[in-house]
């Protein structure tokens, strides 16, 4: 596999939905005497196969609960697939969620180092990047304030500023652009385009048609955990709209 490549083969992620969820030892013992606990399997993702070559830009589109985030989490390595395999080669800069890996009690400065450590950078290496990150985030003096006092836009700025400066080979952006103001969004898009030209793989999740078409040529449509379409972004969008007009979306638990 080459650096920056993502290969997903027949991947599925299942959650067990317990009718009576056992969370304590006491309950587990008591349940033994009552009846066996009944579990229903819910496949948040199933039979998804995708190959994303290095330098490609792909958007995942789908209704809420379609499995986009689950798929992103398996790519980022947060979730292990229950079946199939997900192979990822290269350094990922995952922005799975706004401010993932931030400690809200710490200042912005400390969070930069913390996030750097999570991505495998030493304190020294992060010191070299520090000024660039602060400049990109445009947080000024707020950098020494605990981030629990930040607005959601400031959160997103700091998050993106870190992600863009850690030399990612795979950049995952999940809806975070929606929070920043227009000027910052433009700045992020410009930065993402820079990455594109330098051959960074880009995985994007968004409900904003314009942003998706602007940044990605390829899109995959997820529908109830299945891959419904994979191809050109405009056709994908059409397919997505078509599926939305169908039966009401929403997670449904299929008994196995």
């Amino acid at each position, binding site marked *: 596999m080459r650096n920056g490549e993502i290969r997903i083969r027949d991947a599925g992620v299942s959650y*067990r939905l317990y009718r009576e969820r056992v*969370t304590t*030892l006491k309950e587990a013992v008591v349940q033994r005497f009552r009846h066996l606990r009944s579990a229903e399997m819910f496949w948040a993702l199933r039979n998804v196969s995708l190959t994303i070559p290095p330098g490609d830009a792909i958007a995942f589109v789908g209704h809420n609960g379609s499995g986009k985030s689950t798929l992103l989490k398996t790519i*980022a390595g*947060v979730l*292990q697939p229950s079946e199939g395999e997900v192979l990822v080669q290269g350094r990922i800069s995952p922005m*799975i969620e706004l401010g993932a*890996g931030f400690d809200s009690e710490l200042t912005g400065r400390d969070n930069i180092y913390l996030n750097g450590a*999570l991505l495998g950078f030493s304190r020294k290496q992060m010191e070299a990047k520090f000024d660039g990150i602060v400049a990109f985030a445009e947080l000024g003096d707020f950098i020494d304030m605990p981030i629990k006092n930040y607005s959601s836009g400031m959160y997103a700025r700091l998050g993106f500023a870190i992600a863009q400066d850690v030399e990612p080979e795979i950049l995952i952006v999940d809806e975070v652009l929606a929070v920043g103001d227009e000027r910052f969004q433009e700045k992020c898009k410009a930065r993402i385009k820079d990455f594109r030209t330098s051959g960074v793989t880009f995985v994007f999740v968004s409900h904003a048609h314009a942003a998706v078409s602007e940044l990605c040529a390829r899109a995959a449509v997820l529908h109830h955990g299945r891959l419904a379409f994979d191809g050109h972004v405009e056709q994908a969008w059409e397919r997505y709209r078509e599926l939305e007009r169908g039966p009401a979306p929403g997670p449904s638990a299929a008994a196995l």
Partner: protein
Amino acid sequence: MLNPLLLMIVYTVVFTTIMPVAQRNFSIFLLAALLPWLFFSTAVLQGLNSILGNQELIRKVRVPQAVFPLSVVGSNLVNFTLSMLPLFLLMAALKQRFSTALFFVPVGMILLTIFTSGVTLLLATFTVFFRDVRHLAEVLLQMMMYLSPVLYDLNMLGANKNWWFRFFQWFLAVNPITYLLALIREPVYYARVPDAATIAIATGSSFVALAVGYKVFQRLAPRHIHYL
């Protein structure tokens, strides 16, 4: 660091004035086992919550999860090491003998850390699946303190033919903590290096605890996220 000192004062007052124990320099005798015990029990109790406590991170970022319980053990080891300083000061103040056996203390601390890491990893992963493990562990640790030679020593037990006393002696003999605590009390209080059997049992049980704890933890870690 303050906690063991205050506890030591309480125990020393209790055992020298309220219920006198005829043991020379009882505070040193006590501290030599109480400090290691507090390191173990505090690390385990804090560490078993560490996966739940860091769930925000675990749910969003890929991290080797063993880092969380192990870092708790690490920070408690720092506290433990720092709390040895007042012990040495006290030894000097009470004119307790400093012997070359004291060089063995770091070995004992390392073995105890290995043991503690194993137990902490094991309980940390169990706590994710069964939330009441914490309460269970609190009670069990409290019991274990009295069932391990912390406030007393094996040679203070005397003789008794009762079945429960024989059971108690049997338990002390199979309790790995008995041997681990001896690794530190022997050099500090009795000014001698523990015997080979004690060192062997302590070493063996430490590595077994770490191997089991780490294996089980790594096995169950990918499933944590479904239970957080």
